[in-house]
């Protein structure tokens, strides 16, 4: 099976390779990027509101490149909200606003007025809780994002479709029915299709909002395996209610409670030795 790592190697001239900015313009020399644990997302004292009701209180969080971070916490604590802040999907909801603080991706505050949301979303992909394949063929589902960016040659599209489907561990199952409707797949396959669709545009970050909540254990295992492979290439943030899942596939875990970040540490530590009693209560299943 082709892993994401091989996928990355085969990717020569990167399709979305954009003209390199002069290093001076970025404010930080290109060379200083540390090879490991580079801070990619920097959330700084974020307050977020739905109309008059506050959903996030003073959240600060730094996420590293090519790591899997899990967001956990009881229902309604603001995990999805924070996730959707990261690619500004909350713009779609009327009356939402970031009242205080900032979110920086690669040092750029994504809420600045001159930020192109479209560009942002191309780089920050998202997989939704409820799988939402478009009622088009599998092939079209995956090429949707690329076509938007102007890629049209069939060879190139075919290549990406195969790569993405392999990347999402779906290729073997659907390679003979690429042109049938994506809605004809099983729930787990649909979710993996959505993941394939997200990685086809080669984002840097993939946000996953409870990607397995509608899946059976087998499909869940497949998706988790997939996450494992994807993390060699992408930065992944996953929201989950499943403690085992968080423990299994994430490097770091953030625990939220009623809009606040309670604890953020290595997954190992959160599950074995949480410093906060609330966290402990939650991960050991005493409330939530």
């Amino acid at each position, binding site marked *: 099976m082709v892993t994401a790592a091989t996928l990355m190697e085969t990717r020569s001239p*990167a399709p979305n390779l954009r003209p*390199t900015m002069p290093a001076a313009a970025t404010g930080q020399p290109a060379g200083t990027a540390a090879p490991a644990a580079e801070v990619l997302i920097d959330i700084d004292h974020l307050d977020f509101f739905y109309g008059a009701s506050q959903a996030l209180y003073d959240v600060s969080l730094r996420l590293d490149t090519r790591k899997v971070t899990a967001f956990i916490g009881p229902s309604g604590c603001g995990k999805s909200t924070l996730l959707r802040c990261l690619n500004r999907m909350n713009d779609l909801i009327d009356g939402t606003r970031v009242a205080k603080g900032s979110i920086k991706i*690669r040092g750029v505050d994504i809420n600045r007025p001159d930020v192109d949301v479209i560009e942002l979303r191309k780089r920050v992909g998202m997989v939704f809780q409820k799988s939402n394949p478009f009622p088009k063929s599998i092939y079209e589902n995956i090429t949707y994002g690329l076509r938007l960016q102007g890629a049209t040659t069939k060879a190139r599209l075919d290549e990406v479709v195969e790569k993405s489907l392999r990347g999402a561990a779906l290729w073997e199952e659907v390679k003979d029915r690429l042109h049938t409707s994506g809605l004809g797949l099983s729930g787990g396959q649909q979710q993996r299709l959505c993941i394939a669709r997200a990685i086809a545009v080669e984002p840097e970050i993939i946000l996953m909002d409870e990607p397995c909540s509608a899946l059976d254990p087998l499909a869940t295992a497949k998706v988790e395996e997939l996450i494992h492979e994807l993390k060699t290439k992408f930065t992944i943030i996953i929201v989950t209610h499943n403690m085992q899942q968080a423990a299994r596939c994430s490097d770091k875990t953030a625990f939220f409670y009623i809009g606040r970040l309670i604890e953020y540490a290595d997954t190992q530590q959160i599950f074995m030795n949480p410093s906060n009693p609330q966290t402990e209560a939650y991960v050991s299943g005493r409330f939530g």
Partner: protein
Amino acid sequence: MEPSRAAEPAEFLTGRRKFHLFGLTIDECIKVFFGGNAVVSVVVLALITIFLFKEGFGFFGLNQQSLRVYRQAGLEYVDIIRAQQDDHTALTRYLSDLRLRQFNYFTQQQHLAPAEANQRLAGFDEFADRFGGAVGPIRGLVSDLTETVTAIKDKFTNTENRKEERRQLLAEGRTADAAKVEITAVDFAAELKPLLATRPAYVEANAEFARQLSAVIASAPAMPIPDLQARMDRFKQLTGEYLAGFPAVEQKLKTWDYTRPVPWYQTVTSFILGRDWVTASFWQDWYGVIPLFIGSLMVSVVALFFAVPLGVGAAIYINQIATPLEQKLIKPAIEFISAFPSVVLGFFGVAVLGQALRALSQQPSLAWVPGFPFSERLNILTAGCLLALLAVPTIFTLAEDALNNVPRSFKEASFALGANRLQTIVKIIMPASLSGIISAVLLGLGRVIGETMVVLLCAGNRIAIPDFTAGLAVITQPVHTMTGIIAQEMGEVVRGSIHYRALFVVGLVLFFLSLLINYVAQRIVRRYRISIG
């Protein structure tokens, strides 16, 4: 990972890459395009409302003016006397009805030959003639006065026309010509002098009239049977009341004052409560919406009387009882009926249904049905039946939807408790979908009241309040409707005239009526949705 990625952190700041048009990005242009369309739609729909108002409101000013002239030129004065004369005519009509009944009695019960029957009625005829002739002097007076006041009114109209002419000339800048237009203001006081001078003559004539009537009544012939005698007594009583009203009329004439101002609200009330719609009359135009409103209402009531049981019944049948095959065939069939263009239905009424109903009504075996037999082919019933056919699909579809929306669990719970299907329908499903059904009926009403072609072709187009004393038989009378009057008269009116504006006011009434019906229907549905959730 390509290092280039890290080297382009300002990736998202892409303001300058975009193509711009008038300072907007393409996406914003598209948004503006859609927004523009929305604005145009909304503005035009708002314009409709405003336009209706603008054209409609002018009516009230013009109508007040018309009512003022009605008073100042003395038309009102003459109408007071004319009303007296008309009441007398009504009484003579009562007499002719009585004669017909006697005649029928003689020929049918007593089996007399018509000639003989007429002979027997000679005494009655003489009585009736004397009664009818008594009004002579009054009638003469009225016709004299009519000429007088029409002349005054004409004079006034002329003056107004002159004024208009001058105004136009001035507007064109032809001041010299404008100055040449002679305007002699009508001096109502002087003009009305001869009119008022006839009052003593009237009082005299009236006294004579009253004396004659009393005399005639005193010598009323006896009726052959108690039934008819009762009618004769009633006639005497009515005449007595009529005579008793004379002093009031005289008093009214005495206190009548042409200078009394026409209050502003009268122009509104004369429209809303006016019982006459008379246009293009040599005497006085009246714009009272009541006969039209009642016509629309009657037709709608008849239509709903048929359509509601049929539509709701069919909805219940299809939704709860019918076999799947029936469902599959009948639903589209009923929806198909809703596609019948109303003008085709109207034509069907004119060509087939009107005659068929009349023929049916003339079956002797159906004579017991109120209103049967009737002779007017086009009447409330004909129009109502056709409108029912139009309303049924509306009511059916919406009611069926409402029934469909009742959660399955309600039904299952009821069955599980051992209720049969009818009990479930009546006790569970109907109450749960009641608001939906009510709003379906309301929307059906909206559809029916706004329908034009069917009523225009089939309602008979007689502008008069139907005679409710006939009981149920009232539905076999012809009426005119609000929609029908607009369709019929709009093509012929002068732009900006009072008549034109009156039609707009009728349109406004329809507009608000339909808004109200729609709004209430929606409110009911929304209430119900919340209560289920």
